[in-house]
């Protein structure tokens, strides 16, 4: 057994290593693991149905984690773990997590590969910048979606008219404002006690986050926070401070991992291995209950490319087949709202993740960097595709054929993806409903996808 204070001791007493050496070592070991375990990305098998490959990716991820360890930036030390410690943590990892209260309660539980249980659907604009006056309407557009089981936040560009600067008193004010406004959005959607999986996404500093985690601001006992690893396989004391707080507060917590395909790890195969390893970091170091992955393409900043879909599929399968961890994929699309491309990106990603054993976190669009470019409609598209994958009992093999057809619709556009429409252009701000144009666009996409084999009648 390994406890949190053992982790802290290791962060203070493990061998000193220069950060650059750690980065280089990671790339070298990942490359070795690709060779030893014969991991090969096949662009024709976007959703592979090869159990042996998935199991090898898992073993490679575990071996890499044991070899490289975790780098603590505050002390410059590399913490190592034993196979027994990882196995112990896996054995006792949570099998369910409950969010929300009363009729809004929802339970996330383990999913197997090709599970016929619908995915747990988290809905969020993933911190997309938005004007202060449109923050609640934008967030409401997600919470009100019938398939939403938890939600989280956009990023208000100002709070009380002032920009939010990290490390300043305004950041504390903004974090508190964020919690109040998220709960207000839930009430406006008629779901007052729905869970918020990440209460604060507009503050970097721990003090601001913890100041806002109060019941009087609207935080429920089982709302939560994410703890994000620094890419790749790194942590710092800011993250560990959150762990300490959450150990005492009892709020839910999840790990967030965004390895960059093409970055320190290398190509799709090596990044898949490193992505698996991040889940062990989250489990042992952050003691998280579930895991959210958003591996990204280093140039395109999204995870809807062919390589990234493969990576998402094979890592979800690796973890689902070999552990009972609760794993989720956070979709990052390149295109913006009210475009055919974003619909295809999100639906392809949701199908891939769902049949591979993951839950779905929907969705960052326009790479969540373009102000006002996000709406609940994109989350609806992904959630409906995820539900269909389960209800229709779609296999990996079938999903592979569908996703390849979907990819053909958009993969030539990554160099210049359409930004689409602003939230106030694709939603009616009085009713908080998508415009007829956006509804028609989705209906058109559904018709095309019906031709690819998706049976939308099962949603009725």
């Amino acid at each position: 057994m390994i406890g949190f204070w053992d982790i802290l001791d290791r962060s203070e007493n493990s061998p000193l290593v220069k950060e650059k050496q750690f980065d280089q070592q990671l790339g070298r070991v990942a490359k070795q693991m690709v060779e030893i375990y014969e991991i090969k990305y096949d662009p024709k098998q976007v959703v592979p149905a090869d159990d042996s490959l998935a199991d090898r990716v898992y073993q490679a991820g575990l071996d890499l984690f044991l070899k490289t360890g975790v780098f603590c930036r505050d002390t410059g030390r590399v913490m190592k773990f034993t196979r027994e410690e990882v196995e112990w943590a896996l054995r006792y990892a949570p099998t369910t997590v409950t969010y929300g209260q009363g009729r809004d309660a929802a339970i996330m539980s383990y999913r197997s590969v090709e599970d016929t249980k619908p995915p747990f659907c988290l809905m969020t604009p993933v911190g997309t910048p938005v004007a202060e006056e449109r923050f609640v309407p934008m967030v409401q557009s997600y919470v009100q979606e019938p398939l939403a089981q938890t939600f989280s936040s956009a990023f208000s560009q100002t709070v009380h008219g002032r920009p939010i600067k990290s490390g300043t008193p305004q950041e504390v004010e903004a974090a508190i404002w964020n919690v109040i406004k998220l709960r207000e959005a839930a009430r406006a959607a008629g779901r007052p006690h729905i869970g918020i999986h990440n209460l604060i996404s507009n503050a970097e500093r721990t003090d601001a986050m913890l100041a806002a985690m109060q019941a009087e601001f609207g935080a429920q006992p089982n709302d939560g926070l994410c703890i994000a690893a620094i890419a790749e396989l790194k942590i710092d004391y800011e993250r560990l401070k959150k762990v300490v707080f959450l150990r005492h507060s009892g709020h839910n917590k999840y790990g967030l991992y965004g390895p960059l395909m093409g970055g320190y790890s290398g190509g799709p195969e090596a990044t898949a291995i490193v992505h698996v390893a991040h889940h062990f970091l989250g489990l042992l170091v952050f003691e998280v209950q579930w895991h959210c992955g958003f591996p990204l393409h280093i140039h395109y900043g999204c995870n809807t490319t062919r390589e990234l879909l493969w990576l998402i599929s094979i890592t979800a399968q690796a973890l689902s087949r070999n552990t009972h961890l609760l794993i989720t994929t956070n979709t990052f699309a390149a295109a913006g709202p009210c475009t055919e491309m974003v619909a295809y990106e999100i639906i392809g990603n949701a199908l891939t993740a769902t049949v591979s054993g993951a839950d779905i976190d929907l969705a960052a669009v326009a790479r969540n960097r373009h102000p006002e470019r996000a709406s609940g409609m994109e989350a609806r598209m992904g959630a409906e595709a995820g539900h269909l994958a389960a209800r229709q009992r779609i296999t990996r093999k079938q999903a592979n054929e569908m996703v390849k057809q979907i990819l053909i619709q958009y993969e030539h556009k990554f160099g210049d993806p359409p930004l689409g429409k602003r939230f106030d252009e694709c939603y009616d701000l009085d009713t908080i409903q998508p415009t007829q144009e956006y509804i028609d666009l989705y209906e058109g996409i559904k018709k095309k996808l019906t031709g690819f084999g998706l049976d939308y009648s099962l949603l009725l």
Partner: protein
Amino acid sequence: MMKNEDMSLFEKMADATVRGDEKECVSLAQKTIKMGADPFEAIQKGFARGMRIVGDKFAKLECFLPEVLLSADAMDAAVEVLKPHLMQRTDGGFFGRVVIGTIHGDVHDLGKNIVKVMLGASGFTIYDLGNDVSVHQFIEKADEVGADIIAASALMTTTMAHMPDIDRMLKELGTRDKYLVMLGGAPVIAEWAREIGADGYGEDAAEAVENAKKLMRKKRGGDVS
């Protein structure tokens, strides 16, 4: 100028850089000095050309960051050998001096590190302040080293709000005209960078380098090719 028969030496330099062969790069740099050849030309036509090949491959993901970093290290080692012979001619930098860092509150530096490597490989002298760098630290360092460019990166929407302070603080200090300000990072878009007074922007490392070069050419009245 090197003679035609020495052209293969440039090829060897480029090739050793592409392979990330630090030992070979150092050996070729030493050979350049012994031959009395122009070290500037050796870098431009040899090592830096190799690095550009690596950069192009990285842009197409025909190679990945570990290979880029190995090549950058190999080139840096060669430049270290050549540097003492360059000082008189170039005043320490070919294109210019860049003070670079990730903005205050932000600990994410992968993107910044890639830009740093590519700028260095393109002939800029780099002063890397690391991550979580306050605006006044950027400016103090720029003053200290006589920088041409202040380059700041942010990964988080929560930290990019510090970026407008670079332009504002430089104006307050009356030194805005001394520096070119470049911004980048995942949440930063070109339109916003312009709005908050930046001179340049990089969607990615390749664009950052191109724009940095353009800005320096403009600053120097077109005398740097």
